[in-house]
């Protein structure tokens, strides 16, 4: 299988601290992969080296056959990697509509001169973008709140809006950083449906960092487990549940039965 994203031997050191050690990970074009591990295992660091916030100390990251190492975060986003953040990072002073609209700037055919001259093609492109924003807000049920300032949205809606904004960049790979954090069980159910819906609808790959075992085990095709910056296991949810090393490192005793209670 051709992989969309391939990390090979990625190491990330912060001074004397090794946050990631020789991590290799492959994600195919339609995969839904979960990345789990105890607090401080290096999960978010994986996201940060993929999206260009950190440059890995060593190792290679290939995305669609091209290297991502050393590129600016915006250039990586332009190649089709979108992400959400553990602590929601919406554009706080913008409306729901404008949060999504901002994600279209990357695909604008026209630049600054058109914005100033405001000719016919400018108007057409603006209304095209506007239609697309409305469409995607409708799909995710946020259309009624389009003019609301995003910080007055409910927590679940803020998470959803962040995913919508990421999708508006038309990614090939979506990275979700603990999307279920702080959600109640009902919201988690909705989130699981949402992630699967997004993957099918937009035909993209998803890499999910999550603490909540129920979410990860429920939707992921494959799960990789990190502990102290090293990958200790990778396999189907059923395999991971049985893996003794994983149980020791992370899941604890509860994992022997049905999916354990959420750890958060």
């Amino acid at each position, binding site marked *: 299988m051709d992989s969309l994203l391939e990390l090979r031997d990625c190491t990330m050191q912060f001074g004397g601290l090794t946050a990631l050690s020789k991590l290799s990970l492959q994600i195919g074009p339609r995969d839904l992969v979960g990345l789990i591990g105890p607090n401080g295992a290096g999960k978010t660091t994986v996201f940060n080296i993929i999206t260009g916030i950190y440059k890995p100390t060593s190792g290679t990251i290939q995305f669609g056959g091209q290297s991502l190492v050393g590129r600016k975060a915006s250039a990586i986003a332009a190649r089709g990697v979108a992400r959400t953040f553990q602590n929601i*990072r919406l*554009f706080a*002073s913008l409306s729901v509509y404008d949060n999504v609209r*901002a994600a279209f*700037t990357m695909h604008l055919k*026209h630049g600054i001169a058109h914005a100033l001259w*405001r000719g016919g093609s400018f108007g057409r492109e*603006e209304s095209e973008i506007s239609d697309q924003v409305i469409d995607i807000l409708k799909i995710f049920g946020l259309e009624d709140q389009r003019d609301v300032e995003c910080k007055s949205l409910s927590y679940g809606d803020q998470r959803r809006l962040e995913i919508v904004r990421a999708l508006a*960049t038309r990614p090939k790979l979506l990275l979700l950083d603990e999307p279920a954090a702080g959600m109640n069980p009902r919201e988690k159910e909705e989130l699981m449906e949402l992630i699967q819906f997004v993957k099918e609808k937009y035909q993209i790959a998803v890499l999910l960092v999550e603490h909540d075992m129920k979410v990860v085990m429920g939707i992921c095709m494959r799960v990789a487990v990190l502990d102290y910056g090293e990958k200790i296991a990778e396999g189907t949810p059923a395999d991971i549940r049985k893996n003794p090393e994983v149980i020791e490192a992370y899941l604890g005793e509860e994992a022997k039965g049905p999916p354990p209670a959420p750890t958060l």
Partner: protein
Amino acid sequence: MRPKIYFLIGVLVSFLVWYFVPMDQYIREIVLTIGINIILAVSLNLVNGHTGQFSIGHAGFMAIGAYFSAWITTVGAPTWWPSLDLSGGLAGTLVFLGALLAGALLAALAGLLIGIPTLRLRGDYLAIATLGFGEIIRVVIQNTEVVGGSRGFSVAYGYATIFWTYLFAALTIYVVANLVNSAYGRGFLAVRDDEVAAESIGVNTTKYKVIAFVLAAFFAGIAGGLYSHFKQYLHPDRFNFITSIEVVVMVIVGGMGSTFGVIAAAIVLSLLPEALRFIPQFYQQIFGVSLPHLVDDLLKNRMMIYSLLLIILMLTRPQGIFGGISGRPAFLFKRKSVRADGLAS
């Protein structure tokens, strides 16, 4: 399209006012000062308000535009085209507009050279770097003999009429408002609100910051060129950091990111020192005694009033008088409110 019509109306009105409204020298000076301050404040708002960077070096760019354009009309043009009559007419106007453009372009170039290294800095550090830049420009001019150095520089012609000043004010407003109110312009607001998130959706934050900085420098250069051809005398001290601070105050008082608010603040704060001038007189007429010395001194010191005004405003309405009305609160408090909201729910 509507924005263009507004722009043309602005140009038409400034023409009519210039042509038909008689003004004495005093009123004319105030009106021109207001126009120049509008250009300065609206352009700085693109950087400080919309893009969320904190620049306090606007006087430096203004000085570049002022001195370079003045040098062209006073020293350059008469030597290049000695036969031309530059005191007015078509030749004079063309030379003036060319000089204005050249000054603005040089200011924009300075903005580019300064912006690329300094825009990596955030918040206070950027503010200090831009402040330092403004002072460097001033000191360089002070030591440049061809423009008079610290003796000052007399400008040959007073080309800057109300018409030209307000035409360029309208142009500045047109450019900044159109740029920000487009899909492209959402990038500036995204950079202001959250740089990491902006990068994650493909907004090249460096590029946007540099564009904002260069455009703001360009219009500050225009404002400088207008200033030099209306005062007809330049002195380096006119472009010290107090001038920069005055523009920043206009942006903050008006409400960062609100073009309308910033224009209103530029008008009010330009009129304020003139209004303060008359208070002691009125007081004496009404009460028969002169103001206490302390109050009198306070009124004479504009910066003291500015500082007081700022403190009161920051305590009562930190987003500025008009900030937040267009649905955007000031950038000053944005981070706090995101975190608080995110954690509270």
